[in-house]
């Protein structure tokens, strides 16, 4: 039934509880004295933040949650009235607007002010300006962790030592100072062992989409699956438990030859298997998802679910070299890859997941993703022979989500795949 709420899986319930507990902890920092770190998802140092007993707040998650809760238009408007250009990233403006409106989090309570801004600046120049803007609002130290870009398609020893040295000589001492806790490498190894277990299970879940039918949607569903890993929980027992639970559920779906769960319940038929490049739109997330689900289109792999790490390409945090692997992790996130690497990764997804085609959702706000995507489109069509589609929207600015246009384009795109299939048969 359209619009019906699908029954929540146990893993979803678990994740919901984890998030609720995190926000409750944030709301209680005045009582508990816990310190708060604002930082970003790509290249996040979650294990380290947890190591020092601090709590992360992720401004881009605030922004996307505001988008999903229908608050971003108001927040963007507040920021634009305060002088922020209509041309720039709407995550930033949503966050700034939210801040000016009282910084009310998803629980309805104000988020605590940061004790530290960790500018882990991976794959996005806007992060740099974002935290310069936030610095104006808060009286707290800022750590700049410069993460070099893989311009030449590799992580060189010099890049690695640059990042590792910054973590060792700048980040950790500052964390120690703010938290009053000493860094303990043995304890960090333990955390990383937990990270690895969760990472293994996440990869298993993402790779389950190779099955036909795919038991998961790797983009719309995928954004939920990456939640605990990319935000506050990597390196915790909670994350291990969540991914164990998720894996078991997906295994059950695979055994039963079931497709993914969609906003309207069980997907009925897998007609199109797609790879998607780019982030989703958050303001009309469910409506957007339905445009695919109604047509039997399942996303079997996506680049967006790799912004917080390329685990499926083999990366794991390394308990034997915690700081070195943090450096590798930061530099290995998707938006820190150069264009040839990004294109090659998408090509492999298309082939390995036996996709019928690929789609680019080009978002206005994110130049890191979007600039040059049209070249990726051409190159992938050339390399794979599979049809490529191109739609445009935004992350959290509802003014840039035109449902009719997107639906139209998607319908034409699915027709293109059909035509290609017929051509292949004849």
């Amino acid at each position, binding site marked *: 039934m359209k619009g019906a709420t699908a029954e929540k899986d146990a893993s979803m319930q678990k994740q919901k509880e984890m998030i609720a507990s995190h926000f409750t902890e944030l709301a209680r920092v005045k009582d508990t004295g816990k310190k708060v770190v604002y930082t970003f998802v790509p290249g996040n140092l979650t294990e380290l933040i947890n190591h020092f007993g601090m709590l992360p707040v992720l401004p881009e998650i605030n922004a996307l949650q505001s988008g999903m809760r229908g608050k971003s238009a108001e927040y963007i408007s507040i920021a634009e009235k305060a*002088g922020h250009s209509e041309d720039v990233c709407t995550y930033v403006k949503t966050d700034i607007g939210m801040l000016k409106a009282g910084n009310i989090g998803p629980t309805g309570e104000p988020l605590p002010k940061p004790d530290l801004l960790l500018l882990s600046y991976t794959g996005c120049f806007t992060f740099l300006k974002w935290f310069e803007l936030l610095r104006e609002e808060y009286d707290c130290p800022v750590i700049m962790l410069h993460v070099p870009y893989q311009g030449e398609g590799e992580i060189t020893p010099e890049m690695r030592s640059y990042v590792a040295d910054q973590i060792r000589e700048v980040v950790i001492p500052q964390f120690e100072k703010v938290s009053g806790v000493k860094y303990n490498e043995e304890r960090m190894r333990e955390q990383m062992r937990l990270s690895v277990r969760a990472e293994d299970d996440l990869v298993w879940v993402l790779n389950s989409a190779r099955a036909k039918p795919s038991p998961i949607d790797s983009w719309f569903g995928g954004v939920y699956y990456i939640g605990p890993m990319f935000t506050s929980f990597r390196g915790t027992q909670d994350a291990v438990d969540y991914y164990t639970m998720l894996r078991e559920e997906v295994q059950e779906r695979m055994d039963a030859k079931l497709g993914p769960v969609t906003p309207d319940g069980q997907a009925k038929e897998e007609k199109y298997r797609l790879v998607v490049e780019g982030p989703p739109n958050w303001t009309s997330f469910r409506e957007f998802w339905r445009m695919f689900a109604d047509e039997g289109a399942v996303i079997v792999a996506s680049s967006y679910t790799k912004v917080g790490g390329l685990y499926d390409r083999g990366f794991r945090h390394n308990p034997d070299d915690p700081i070195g692997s943090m450096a590798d992790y930061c530099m290995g996130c998707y938006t820190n890859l150069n264009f040839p690497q990004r294109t090659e990764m998408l090509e492999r997804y298309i082939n390995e997941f036996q996709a019928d085609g690929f789609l680019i959702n080009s978002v206005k706000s994110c130049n890191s993703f*979007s600039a040059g995507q049209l070249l990726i489109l051409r190159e992938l069509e050339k390399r794979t022979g599979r049809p490529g589609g191109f739609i445009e929207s935004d992350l959290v600015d509802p003014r840039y989500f035109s449902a009719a246009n997107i639906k139209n384009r998607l319908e034409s795109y699915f027709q293109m795949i059909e035509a290609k299939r017929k051509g292949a048969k004849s």
Partner: protein
Amino acid sequence: MSTLATDASERLRQIIARAEALYDDLDFKVVKEWKEQGKNRKAIGFLPIYVPREVIHAAGALPVGIMGGADRIEIVRGDSYFQSYICHFPRSVIELAVSGRLDACDGFLFPSICDVVRNLSGMFKMLFEGKWTHYLDLPQNFDNRLGGRFYKNEMRTIAREVGKLTGVEVTDKRLRDSITVFNENRTALRRLVHARRDRPWEIPTIDYYLLLRAAYLLPVEEHTAMVNEYVELSAQAGRPRMDNIRVAVRGAFCEQPPLGLLRTLERAGCYVVDDDFVLGSRFIEQDVDHHGDPWDALADGFMNRSLPTASKYDQRGTKHADFVQRVRDFKADGVIFMAPSFCDPALLDQPMLVKALENAGIPNTSFKYSEDTGQFQVIREQAGTFADALKLWGKA
């Protein structure tokens, strides 16, 4: 007008005609000619804002600034690579490249400035396989032991790779010699900037701008001579002083404004006495040490003594105060923010700088442009109103 003034005016006209011809040279003929004048000469194209040109020079190559096509090139293929919400600059760079106009360049350097230019580096790798293309990650950590070491390694990589093209090894001595000739250029540009600050009526904005742009095409020694001669003669030309206000301009450090826009500002009653046009040409304003370790000296120049700009992290948190001080030092009556449309660094920086000016009581106004903007009436009215308001009431 005296004979001296007439002679000076005529020579100034010739110098600027030469600079304007360089500006118009979208086929980079001057680079091709330079290459033909010697054996195995190579040219390395670089994008805004800053690359250490001394390293390219020391490797025996010509650093060539790629600043887009402004309003002088029809974008035929460039638009098909970028969505409507991406700035104009990469479109014209791609257009220049795919139309063969950049063939004179034997390699390309893309310094870290924003996500668009960063991605463009990878696009070049895919589109022009076989051409050396390097992304120069400038450090955002300004500790000599951390960012400094990383940056020196980046510079050595460039030296090695350009050296492979030219067959020249970049020794410390060669690099020190290059620093010396670039220091001479810095001295000349300081004279130009200061002359314009002190006597803006003697150096029209357009002349000043064309002289800066020439830095990106001419061999450095030739450019130094050109600037020195211009500055010397400008004091003799007897140009009349207009009743203009003095403005500082910010936001134009990457995609460049069309010449028509610069003329418009001056016609609207604004002398531009401080700016960030062609910023890489004078990013390190003071001389770089040419006695000690040249790699250390260049790293120190970038990390500790380069100008603030939106794509460089403000580690010390002093950019507000520094900007206000700069505006006062240059005796600007107000500030015009003119950023290219969709320029993330400039537009995200702007609210912070506006706040600093407002707190200091310094008037400001803002508009956006694109390198191919062709209609200036609205800008003329806005800049004119700004100038009139300052002249009449001392505030906008």
